[in-house]
């Protein structure tokens, strides 16, 4: 599996919802903006959580990309 998660900092408004859904992969900086811990998603579990976080972000600021095959 090869998948990545990134955050579009121009869209993030610091709602912090993502960190609730994917606490092992996203932390918040001292102003409450999302911060990706590791761009590479290590396993299916992480990918699933990352997708959930991306869907939950009200600003569509999270980008999850999966390499084909």
């Amino acid at each position, binding site marked *: 599996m090869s998948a990545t998660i*990134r955050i*579009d*900092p*121009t869209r*993030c408004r610091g709602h912090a919802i993502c960190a609730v859904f994917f606490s092992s992969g996203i932390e918040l*900086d*001292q*102003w409450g*903006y999302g911060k990706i811990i590791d761009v590479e998603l290590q396993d299916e579990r992480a990918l699933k959580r990352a997708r959930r976080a991306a869907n939950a972000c009200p600003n569509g600021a999270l980008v999850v*990309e999966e390499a084909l095959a």
Partner: protein
Amino acid sequence: MSTPVSIRPRGNPLSLGRLAQDIAREARAAQSEGIVADPLMPVGDSDAAERGVGRALVGPVGSLGTVLLSGPTAGGGPADLELHLARWGALAVDTATILDVLDSSEIDGRGGGGFPLRRKVDAARAAGHPLVIVNASESEPASRKDATLCTLRPHLVLDGAALVAKALGTSDVVVHMHRGSGMAGPLRAAIEQRKAAGFAAADSLSPDQSHTVVDPAWRLSEGPDRYVSGESSAVASSVEGGEARPYFTTSPLAVHGPSGRPTVVSNVETLAHLAVAVRLGGDVWRAFGSDDAPGTRLVTLTGAVAEPGLVVEASGPVTLGDLLQAGGLDHPPAAVLVGGFGGTWVDGADAWSTPFSRPGLSDVGAGPGCGMVGVLPPGACGLAETARIVAYLAGESAGQCGSCVSGLPRLAAALGDLARGRMRRRGVRKTASIADEIFGSGACGHPDAVVRLVRSALDVFAGDVEAHLDGGPCAGAELAPVFMVPGPRRIDSSGGGWK
């Protein structure tokens, strides 16, 4: 200085292009006449002779040893098409050769990024219908090299753009600059000269095989004069009618620009080097530099130098000390700001012998950036200078990314406190932690550049930091600024002003 000028490029002159021979002949003539003083400044020596590579040469427009800037001096005005062709000859090259030269020369981006031009061209070639953007948006307030090049040697820039367009099989080229930069006039005049000379006329051969380099359909475009507006995604966005602010990209612009087209954004100096390298051959072009820094390099000298804003061209194995000598210094200054306002402080004594190459500068934590070299004289306060620069850069945030918007003003305030002697030891630690938090968090490299600047200041001026903590500001903090920072600019709160 009594050391003779060495002649470069070395090797068999018969194997060189016409202009290279000219340059070698000029250097020989100068040597036989014993001309080693103005306008040519032979500087440095180091181990160059041992390695058999030429001596380092640093000189202003029109001086011996210059390549891009060879020809008339600054007072002589722009090199028009006639002069340009007399000096360099017409372009006659097929696509395969352009790609070969991009490969063998390894021309790197000279706007600050340092990204190899070949890689951008390859990425864009793989996709359809590319756009070429000539980036003349010189954003660093103290840098003058792009303006100098576009004003005095516009045809080299345009040649380079025509070559990239040919390699990509496109005729769409936009030259983009800051509004009010003064570059539009000379560039427009140069384009008119080329049109009048029939540069846009195609021949009947297939474009790839033909050796004719047809001028593309030039378009000039201007955007707001803001610091971050020179960043490539901001430039591409501005050219496509959007805001001149960086945006978040998931794939390189050369693959997928703002309108979906592969978009190659290249600095004007980079393109001018390509125009030269294609004529001289990639290897000869490389030989004008050093192993670590192929080709020549344009540098703007600023701060406490003889002539702030002087643009020089450096060839050979140049050290920062060589550049400083060209600025009139005969011994190391207090510190040197390398690469721009968004650059890095280097201790003056360390700087003197540091090679002005990517690896050499990286050993002292710096990089060539936009090629600005700024001198902090003894007695001046590096912390006060840094505070002013950081305040300026914080005000130049594009206001999009949370940590850039929230973090940079805090960094600026902290540096201001430190410079004024209003900070305690705890504050220094906090400043460092804000810097750590901001690093890598933006859609563009702006916050990272500020963080590097601040970290280098805390390091190079560590002694001053202690003094400011213990006993308030130093005497230097009260002096007039060495680096002139543009005043604050207001962008209306509705987010306007970016078009």
